[in-house]
């Protein structure tokens, strides 16, 4: 698929068919993630491919419930994860991205500290584009109780769960969320310019 078509037509998919997704396609998606750039090529990302419905359900159960004035309801992403054949959980090795350049003892270089959120997202964007190019849908989910996910998946200390996305055949087209006008978000030469 042509790049701009992939970028413009990718949608967050919240309903999946029961069709299976083969390992070759999952590997192609992960391969796209692996080719993302990263801070000093530190590649802090780690991907856990979850197919086991029971494991998937336990991860889906960690999503934060939605508190309404009169009741607490399940996060709709929980059912979305359970309906897709594959869930990719994106983890990060902490304390490697954002470090001082040129070696020596590890020390964060900038006021942002650890850049693991940034680097994993570069890889995630590649993966959701690649999935779309293969005819598969995804939706990036961040509203999980990450420490609980880490327990479910045995993620050791020094690593963190960042985000996750189901992969499956879209059951219907996603909708286009409205975007701000480019003039609202782009300035020239200085802020507000």
């Amino acid at each position: 698929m042509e790049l701009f078509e992939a970028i413009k037509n990718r949608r967050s998919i919240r309903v999946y068919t029961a069709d299976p997704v083969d390992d070759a396609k999952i590997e192609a998606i992960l391969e796209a993630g692996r080719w993302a750039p990263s801070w000093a090529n530190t590649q802090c990302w780690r991907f856990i491919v979850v197919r086991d419905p029971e494991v998937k359900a336990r991860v889906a159960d960690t999503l934060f419930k939605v508190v309404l004035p009169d009741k607490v309801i399940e996060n709709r992403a929980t059912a979305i994860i359970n309906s897709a054949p594959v869930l990719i959980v994106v983890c990060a090795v902490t304390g490697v991205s954002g470090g001082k350049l040129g070696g020596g003892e590890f020390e964060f270089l900038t006021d942002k500290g650890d850049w693991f959120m940034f680097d994993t997202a570069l890889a995630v964007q590649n993966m959701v584009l690649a999935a779309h190019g293969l005819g598969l849908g995804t939706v990036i989910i961040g509203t999980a109780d990450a420490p609980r996910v880490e327990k479910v998946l045995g993620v050791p200390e020094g690593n963190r769960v960042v985000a996750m996305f189901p992969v499956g055949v879209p059951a219907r087209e996603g909708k286009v969320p409205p975007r701000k006008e480019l003039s609202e978000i782009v300035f020239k030469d200085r802020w507000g310019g």
Partner: protein
Amino acid sequence: MDVLDAIMGRRSIRRYKSNPVDDAKIKTVLEAAHWAPSWGNKQCWRFIVVRDQETRSKIADTLMKIRVENELVENAAARGIRQAPVLIVVCAEKGQAGFRSDGTPVTDKGDVWYMFDVALAVENLALAAHSVGLGTVIVGGFDTTRVEEILGVPDGYRVVTMTPLGVPDHAGQVSPRKDLAEVTYHEKFGR
């Protein structure tokens, strides 16, 4: 360009030709960035397109030096920022990505989901630039506060990252990647 070819073929470019880059191409790459998904569709990203040479040079001066054998040398990206005709500085609105409507953070990551969302957009930008024949290098190692002063970024927003945008003057090297098996597990971490 095919999406997978763009993903595999993009390289970090640190030397640029002086060829101009027209506004239409800049708009193309910014639109690609803007099509990224974001937390609750908050679109917390903001882009400052810097063409002014003096401003670019001042910003290049804020990049942290790199220690090479006990000597501090300029980051090659600083030269790239001076050479390329355009610098895109990417900012984020704070308190949007990862926050509930009452202003409290949703997850254990607190307020840093803006780093995640900005990066989703930056990756689109880098891929789009590559497919229209332009190079980028994502730069994070600079004095944020000074850049915010230079560009007049107001409270409530942060400068996150920047990239020069220009015609590559070299092919870019392939940074060796870990094997997929080293970064991929099944059902459980480490398996």
